């Protein structure tokens, strides 16, 4: 009888005691990581001023929660090995660990689980990408803003309103907006951090990005591509205002533009 148990324990590639401790560490780490992801990420990422940014924050949280058990597994085994399996001597250990060359069950489980997780990420990401593309549809109902990057300033023009130009960006709340972005010189990147929207401004090409602002307030545009000496200064304000305020502002701008034009004609 005792022979049988010893033979079995020799054959088993794990010991129950190790597995129990590792499980406890794993559970603890997983909970801490998932809790941190759910609570810390939105806090750090600050204001979510558009539907796009809400998607981004959700993605970050979802990915971290999905990755937490994997990271926790690797770390819990590593951590446990430092205490549970530590060799305390000073010279080369005379005893070796067990000669475990491979284990089909372990490896196939690992590959299957990581593939399933990867598939989950892909489905999530691809569905977000395609839902973004479907925002393309109601083009007539969108506000179009042309964005011009140059060293080191942004200029905006509103083609639906007589092409009025502005150095501050004004957007009406809850209205789908399409940015058509280009550059006069080098590559810049048009980025509104609070709206999670970004697209490069390339010389000789027009690129597009879309979003719907969902919060009133002042936000920033920052350049996200090193564009020369004053790259860090290449930023300005985004004002998200009510529909009425936006109409008032744009009419004002049109008026100013017209006065300037007629003065120029004189």
């Amino acid at each position, binding site marked *: 009888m005792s022979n049988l148990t010893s033979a079995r324990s020799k054959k088993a590639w794990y010991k129950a005691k190790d597995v129990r401790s590792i499980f406890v560490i794993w559970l603890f780490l997983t909970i801490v990581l998932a809790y941190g992801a759910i609570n810390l990420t939105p806090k750090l990422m600050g204001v979510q001023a558009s539907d796009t940014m809400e998607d981004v924050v959700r993605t970050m949280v979802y990915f971290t929660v999905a990755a937490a058990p994997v990271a926790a597994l690797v770390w819990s085994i590593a951590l446990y090995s430092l205490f549970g399996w530590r060799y305390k001597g000073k010279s080369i250990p005379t005893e070796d660990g067990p000669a475990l060359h491979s284990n089909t069950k372990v490896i196939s489980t690992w*590959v299957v689980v990581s593939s399933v997780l990867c598939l989950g990420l892909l489905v999530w990401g691809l569905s977000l990408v395609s839902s973004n593309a479907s925002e393309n549809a109601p083009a007539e109902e969108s506000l179009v803003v042309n964005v011009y990057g140059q060293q080191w300033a942004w200029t905006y023009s509103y083609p639906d309103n007589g092409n009025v130009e502005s150095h501050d960006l004004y957007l009406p709340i809850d209205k789908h907006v399409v940015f058509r972005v280009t550059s006069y010189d080098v590559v810049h990147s048009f980025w509104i951090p609070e709206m999670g929207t970004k697209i490069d401004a390339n010389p000789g090409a027009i690129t597009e990005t879309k979003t719907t602002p969902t919060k009133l307030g002042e936000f920033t545009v920052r350049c996200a591509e090193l564009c020369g000496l004053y790259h860090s200064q290449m930023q300005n304000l985004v004002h998200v205002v009510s529909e009425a305020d936006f109409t008032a502002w744009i009419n004002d701008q049109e008026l100013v533009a017209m006065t300037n034009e007629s003065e120029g004609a004189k």
Partner: protein
Amino acid sequence: MTTAIRKHARNNVGGIMPRLNIFTGLLAGVISAYIVWKLANAFLPGDDSPTRNNLAITVALFGWSIGFMIGIGAFVGPIRWLLGKDLSEEENHFLAGKNQGVWRYFRFTTDHKVVGIQYLVITMVLFGVAGIMAMIIRTNLATANGQIVNASQYNNLVGMHGIIMIVATIIMITGPFGNFILPIMIGAKDMAFPRLNALSFWLIFAAVPVLLSGFFLGGITTGWTAYAPLSSQSSPGMNSYAVTIIIFAISSAVAGANITTTTLTMRAKGMTWSRTPIFVYGAVISVALAIPAFPMFMVSQIFSLMDRGVGTTFYNANGGGSAWLYSNLFWLMGHPEVYVILLPAIGALMEITTVFARKPLFSFRAAVVGMAGIAGLSVLVWAHHMFAAGWAPALDGPFMVTTELISIPTGLLFLVIVGTLWRGNIWLRLPMMAVYAMLWNFMIGGITGIYLSDVPADMALHGNMFVTAHFHFTLMGAGLVGAMGAVAFWFPKVTGKLLDEKFATPGFLISQVGFNVTFLGMFTVGLQGMPRRVADYAVIFERGNQIATAGAYIIFFGMLLFMYAMISSWISGKKAPINPWGSQTLEWTVRNPIPLENFDELPVVTSDPYRFGEKR
């Protein structure tokens, strides 16, 4: 007695060869650069335009490199062959550095052990230089309106730090250990092409002054990516960058061909593929991956030089060119390149894990499949660096798929290491600490990489400090940690001395603490929305930046301790036994100091090198 031997050795070798060394190389290089510069200014057509000036500087930089290589004697062998007077055996021994003492490190020496040490030293110097630049960058970022350097100097430091670190991390393991350790590990007397080996090192050496000349030519103010058309309008320092990359690409092609051929053809009798150590796989897959990758980089820089110096318009939209052509070429190199850096580090750490856990690798095959899978996928992911470029929105989905698939083979590598730790007899010496540090850092680097592979999340994070923190967690947290582990592991064999762990271990641990403080701080400002490569920033980012800067000083202190330990042990450390770790790979069977042709008798291999826990 030694002088007698030296005289004897010299007496047998006549002609120009014994007279050439690093100094004749430097002299010939400087003279050649000067002459080419003068000739270019005298005879190049056109007026005194920036284009003409760029061209003159470019040819002068090539003039330096070719002059240096001639002056150090890189072409003596081929020219003698051309003349029908191939080198005699004595001359080949002279070329291998026989009986030349320390001098052999300053010559065109072909012995792979000399080349390995040369690579180790130049890597340390590059890390030192670029590390000091990182400290200036971090000091400037300690406050929102840092005034330590001005905007132009700041951009230059960012570019220089980036490209020097990239070069250093690419060579940091396959250079020193791929050359010194790998041939002995597979039971070979030397590399397959000893002269190409020396050539690859001295090309890198010639490229360093070219790169640093950028400092005096207006700087490399474009970041290491050198995006066009910003690079086209930048100062003449960009020529230095482009010429450096071209030389570096040649060097890595030569080194890659050499290491690959050596492994394919010179493994000891009985060393089948399944008995070949995993480090060899890591190194070979890495350099083999560099062979298709770096020519892309080289072409991108040739076009850049032509746009700058001859007025072509490859990247100029006004002339029908495209900035996207550059970014495509660049990232066709740029993404395989991160795995060129990573795979040898992982290979070295796997080697270390088996020895210090006293266990066989938990599935050698899974390790090989993991590495090969990463290498295969890595050439299909380049455009994930361009999600925000607007280049091909239709390809966002496919590139997201290929990128996220890499997590599967990468996960296998984690499984191999954790599985090897499983129930091991863990001997926690310095090399083993690097394994644990990598498991922590690379997990963070990997998971943050998944966010960046997701198109919508990348739109928020691209071009942002988050990305900077992410790739430092992979290249430094896994790559450099692997290199430090490799140094600690192989130091006794490379130098014949024991590494003083009294200083090296705290140095390593302090640098790891500092590393995590720095880059976790950087992650937070990234999430808050701080762009990268900015000399100043909005006040909301100040706290995270101060944490990052404090961490950087901790890293610096730790690295100094580690370097001190390395240098002092190298000079006056205790003599190392032949096999201080009880390892079973072949490099631990050769005498200290290692004889010129490594083995007194070529080994015959009868098993894999991980027979821990079995009767040996």
